[in-house]
């Protein structure tokens, strides 16, 4: 069982993800407020973070959040981030794997919303397995 922390302001969407993750035997905590999420993560290390990009007060708060986490120090080092996105900063086609880099887009992987729940399950399993191997 893994501890998954989800930062997502759309609770209808988050609830669907929680159900799928629970069916995989994982524990999921959802935080709709990105500021509170940062405070929580400074004291608690999850096994995986599922992160939305756009939040009500900032269109790209999720990306900035991922960049901040990267600089947070040893507690969060190595925690994979799975980004869920409905838009791309450059054009609304979704992100490409080629966009991932440690400064602009510091995440382990991403999925374009709307998410295929089977794809989400596979992605989460893969990221947790990779993370366990890295330890």
């Amino acid at each position, binding site marked *: 069982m893994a501890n998954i922390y989800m930062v997502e302001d*759309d609770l*209808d*969407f988050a*609830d*669907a*993800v929680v*159900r*799928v993750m629970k*069916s995989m035997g994982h524990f999921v905590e959802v935080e709709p407020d990105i500021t509170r999420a940062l405070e929580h993560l400074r004291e608690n290390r999850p096994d995986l973070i599922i992160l939305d990009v*756009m939040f009500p007060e900032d*269109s790209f708060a999720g990306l900035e959040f991922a960049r901040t986490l990267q600089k947070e120090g040893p507690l969060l080092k190595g925690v994979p981030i799975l980004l869920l996105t*409905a*838009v791309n*900063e*450059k*054009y*609304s*086609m*979704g992100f*490409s*794997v*080629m966009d991932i880099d440690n400064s602009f887009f510091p995440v382990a992987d991403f999925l374009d*919303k*709307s*998410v*295929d*729940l*089977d794809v989400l399950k596979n992605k989460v399993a893969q990221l947790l397995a990779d993370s366990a191997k890295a330890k």
Partner: protein
Amino acid sequence: MRQPYELPLPLEPAGLEEGLPPPAGAGHSFEPLLLANVTWYCELRWIVIAILAAFGAVSFLPDFMHAFGLKSRITWPFALAAILLFTNAFFLAHIRVLKQSGDLRGIRRNLKAQIGFDLVVVTLTVHQAGSVETTIAFLYLFHIVLSCIFLPRIESLAVTLIACALYAVCLGLETGGLLLPSTLYENAAPRAALSAMPGFPLIHIGSVEVTFMVVWFLTSRLSTLLRTREKDLMETNRRLLFAQTERMRFMLQTTHELKAPFAAIQANTQLLLKGYCGELNRDALEIVRRIHERSHRLAGMIQEMLQLANLRSRSEGPLRRVPVSVASALLSSIEQVRPIAEEHRVTLREELEQADSLGVEDHLKVLFINLLKNAIQYSRKGGEVRVRCRVPPGSSEPQVVIEDRGIGIAPGKLPRIFDEYYRTSEAVAHNKDSTGLGLAIVRHIAETHRIRLRVESAPGEGTVFLLRFPALPGG
């Protein structure tokens, strides 16, 4: 047999300007001009130094000078050239230091010092060359004009008044006998004749200085008008950039606001379809499946409508085309559609050679992704999509070919496939997700980038899109 159709390009490029400079920064409109030209002003002085030295050297050819009625073996040009040489080197070194420290005020002071120093040197030149026998006094005009360009109007007026005063003092001292008149000419008779006239030197000073003032008035007025216009343009540019950023932000926000509810609907319908909430009866399952499919299609359509609107709104203003690697944009697009190809069990085969063109990279990716998605979605299961990128031998225009062996398009329908919301009945039957907007987006980007787009197709045989990109300038 496949029938060809070539998308006609509009006569004028729609909304693209090459190499549009970045917006100028805020501040005084003459400041960028000042920074750009303060060194140039010094460089110009090297030419003056060379002319003075050359003239001094030529004066040591007595026969040559005599042929023009000029004095020979004159040394003052060397003296002035030497003074200018040292001071110019000092000014240049000072500017370098000021530029490094970003001291704009210091640069302005440096420029004013240069102009003041030049006026004194011009006065010495005027005195030596002949203040009334020659038209050398018009050398002041160069500095008056330059000060009108570089300095605010009031300061350029000060420069003009200083020039008038220096010329008047020079002529006054010569006329009053405090300074021995000098001339380039061997014969001093013209000066003597002028001095004998009752109106001299007032008429002479008056006519020259009225000319200075008129030149100052016209040039400074023109310069002020240009500065005002430049300031207006800068403000307009700033507003346009702000509006463009705001529009982009709005489009992204709208996309998110429209897509997010669909993401929630689809995630929840998947929960029902995949049994996360228990078994549903067959009718209920079928209804949920319909809700899921229609919401998926609607989300796709909204995304494409927004994308087209976004591209259109951007093209109302000029876009900056820069050199871009067509092969890299194509590779990135292939990676993005690879999951769709896997889902449709279609193999993507690419042969990409390096090829560069001018364009907006994001737009090229959108164009490629739409064409690739089309090729995949209209292929049959187990089919293959071939993608090639190269610059043909003897040409400098990159070419991209996207070829499928899918359902194809009837020749009579080819001219309409780029119309918004147009879908052939065969396309609708094969792919229910088709929105009819993908190729309209392709057309828009092709037109704005001057990409020649040719399509060859035949029902049952597949479709080939051939794109010919503009060559890089000088490529």
